[in-house]
């Protein structure tokens, strides 16, 4: 229940769910669980996972994707070996999610410009949060004429942080893959090193900052 007595909206992971068939559970046993998340990013880095193309098939023999926007599972269940984090930290929900990832993952990878230094969303840091909200909601040229000047605020809407920050300024991040987004090759290099238990060695030749 919320403070005003209204029924709280349930998150999907709190709803009753049908357990996966025994065959699926068996097939996943022994695989390395991986979770992915986009915080304040554009999902471009997550799409770089799909840029593995046909290489994703042998990789999926070694790993299983748990919480991810690709699987639509909303919470990490159990212990996860690798967390793939895209996007910077721009609101309280991002902080909570990142801490949830840190708590449940052995290794966290900071992927892409937003996660590493804030990226495009961090452009708002030089403008200031108040000015940003004013421009977006009050002085916006696309605001419906005559509509009340309101900056949306509700407990279900995550509160924005004053500035957008890189993930490693909030929790410890173990590895970094730069790029906006990184090439599928770079993602493959790091994931396959981790899946095979090798030291991560991302070649400079496939690394970009843009």
């Amino acid at each position, binding site marked *: 229940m919320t403070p005003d007595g209204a029924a709280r909206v349930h998150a999907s992971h709190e709803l009753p769910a049908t357990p996966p068939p025994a065959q699926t559970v068996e097939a996943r046993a022994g695989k390395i669980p991986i979770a992915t998340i986009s915080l304040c990013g554009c999902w471009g880095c997550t799409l770089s996972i799909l840029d593995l193309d046909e290489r994703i098939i042998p990789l999926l023999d070694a790993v299983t994707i748990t919480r991810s926007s690709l699987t639509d599972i909303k919470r990490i269940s159990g212990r996860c070996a690798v967390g793939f984090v895209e996007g910077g930290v721009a609101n309280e929900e991002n902080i909570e999610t990142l801490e949830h990832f840190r708590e449940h993952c052995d290794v966290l990878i900071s992927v892409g410009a937003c996660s590493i230094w804030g*990226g495009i969303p961090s452009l708002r840091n030089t403008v200031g949060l108040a000015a940003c909200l004013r421009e977006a909601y009050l002085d916006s040229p696309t605001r419906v004429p005559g509509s009340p000047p309101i900056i949306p605020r509700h407990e279900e809407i995550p509160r924005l942080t004053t500035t957008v920050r890189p993930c490693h300024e909030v929790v410890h991040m173990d590895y970094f893959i730069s790029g906006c987004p990184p090439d599928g090759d770079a993602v493959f290099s790091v994931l396959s090193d981790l899946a095979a238990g090798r030291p991560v060695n991302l070649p400079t030749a496939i690394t970009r900052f843009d």
Partner: protein
Amino acid sequence: MTIQLTIDGEVVTTTEGTPLVEVAAANGTYVPTLCHHPGSPCLGTCRVCAVRVNGAIAASCSLGARDGMVVEVNTPELRDLRRTIVEMLFVEGVHNCPSCEKSGRCQLQAVALDMRLEGARFPYRYPDREAEHDAARIWLERDRCIFCQRCVEFVRDRETGKKIFSISRRGERARIELDVELADAMPPEQVAEAVDLCPVGAILAKGVGYDVPIGQRRYEAWSLRNRVLGRRPS
């Protein structure tokens, strides 16, 4: 005069007075640089070329070779020291590679990639520095300037020899300035030279941009390290 010194334990022969950074490159040891411009007077501003000479840390661009010098370049400590300087440059400005036209031919980016720079160990500062758009063919993205002073010293009015770029204020308030009148008198090839001379994306030419595809840009086609060492791409 021909002299001998050691670089990372290896004896090398060179002419006395040659900048150490160039002696190292001639003998196959890459030292990263940002302000150093071969053939031009030493600036010594960026300190990214820090090495250890006879036990003391020094900027290898600013020191001439002397007989018997013991130079260390690639120790873990020195690598970390140079990397620290580059990390500080990244957090003090806004080095937004994804939206920078200089990306792929930016020396700071190339140096950082070669060092495998990841997240900086210092908090990002996101400074707000106003861009300068007043000149006709050239503009300044001030938040990318690393104050190497290459443009200040080496880009001058062709008639009078006057400086076109300068630095105003001090410390964290320092900013790169452009004399608009002199800038408008620059011939197009001098504008291109100034853009090229800038080791970051602070000086940019108006009316052009993103004309080389990703993968074929300057340091992608031929890495900075191989250029410095004179090794052609395979």
